[in-house]
């Protein structure tokens, strides 16, 4: 993945300009910077949710605007919002989110729920889950997405120390198996050195 000369404005404020980077496979890009510097906005541009003022994002040499659906299939996105329906149970939510991407059987999903420690809460409606539990459910979605690229916005929020360690492990094994990740976070990712890449953002002008 490549980003070239990205520039984005919000109102009369320029969040970033001439931002470029290259992310090869087997790397995790750690995006850091103070609050309000445009981390989330950058991630949304990389997803194709927002249009940059200037510049382009390329995936395997092709602009992401060219073949939108193809690109979207290649990555999994975790934003501030988890995207779960309050009325549906954790299990139903997971089944829906995953089935949009690929076919899985109940067993695989149950295993994943177990892995993120949600077996006991699997049949509760999402309304009653805690913020941390919902975050864990999102992680389960990401794990099952089979995406090559993960774009995660502040995945550590609301998670306990065990949950945070889990993310680090997940990122390590994802990179080890040839995947790539872009993670916006204030803290260290806990990803092993050879996989790690940094992008420090500065305050908006």
């Amino acid at each position: 993945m490549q980003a070239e000369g990205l520039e984005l404005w919000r109102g009369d404020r320029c969040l970033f300009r001439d931002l470029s980077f290259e992310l090869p496979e087997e790397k995790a890009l750690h995006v850091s910077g103070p609050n309000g510097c445009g981390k989330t906005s950058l991630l949304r541009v990389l997803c194709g949710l927002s249009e940059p003022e200037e510049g382009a994002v390329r995936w395997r040499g092709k602009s992401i605007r060219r073949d939108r659906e193809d690109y979207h299939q290649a990555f999994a996105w975790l934003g501030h919002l988890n995207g779960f329906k309050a009325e549906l149970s954790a299990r139903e939510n997971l089944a829906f989110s995953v089935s949009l991407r690929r076919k899985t059987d109940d067993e695989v999903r149950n295993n994943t729920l177990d892995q993120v420690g949600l077996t006991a809460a699997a049949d509760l409606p999402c309304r009653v889950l805690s913020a941390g539990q919902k975050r864990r459910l999102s992680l389960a979605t990401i794990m099952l997405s089979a995406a090559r690229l993960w774009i995660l916005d502040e995945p550590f929020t609301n998670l306990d120390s065990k949950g945070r360690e889990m993310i680090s492990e997940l990122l390590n094994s994802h990179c080890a198996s040839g995947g790539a990740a872009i993670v916006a976070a204030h803290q260290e990712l806990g990803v092993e050195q050879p996989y790690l890449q940094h992008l420090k953002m500065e305050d908006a002008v």
Partner: protein
Amino acid sequence: MWKLFHQFGSPPHFYRLAGYLIPWFGAAALILILIATYGGLVLAPADYLQGDGFRIIYVHVPSASMSLFAYTLMATAAGIGLIWRIKLAHAVAAAVAPIGASFTFLALATGSIWGKPMWGTWWAWDARLTSELILLFLFLGYMSLRAANDDVGKADRASGLLAVVGVVNVPIIHYSVEWWNSLHQGATIIKLGKPAITGDMLWPLLMMLAGFGFYFATVMMIRTRSQVLQRERKSQWLKSL
């Protein structure tokens, strides 16, 4: 061709060109409108059926034409802006909306004033008046949607999409209103703007139409220039103003 398109689409180029054209277009509009007004009010003979009352045609019909033209232009510009991501096109669309809404309002108001002596009532559900009323709501919806978005880029795209959806709908609305009107009123009411027009009645009308066209272009260019100023973030060329 593509290059020409882009050169014209470059804001600084447009800004300068418009600055040069505005006084000329404004003068042309003024002269044409004045002559047409004289022709319409003094030289044209009174209509044998509607007497001097028919002279309202000289402001009503051109306003109605301009309002429809404005909507089409707005939607076309917005469509170009959406497809090719040309900011100038969005600026044009945003600039046209208030002018179009004014002409729509004028067509409604003068139509209603004309209706009073002709039909004995200020408002009749005449096909054209009804269509203009719906058109006014289309313009108002466009402008409200634009005002509700605080980010210019987002406002451009959202309202532009609405205009494009609207313009596909306009012929359907027009046809449905005509059909609805013909079912109910038939020939009992004199249709506005359809007296037997003779040559000396026609030329002031056409001239007024041309004058309104130049006026439209003048105000549109002024408004587009302000829209361009609002959108341009790279200040290099702005420094030379």
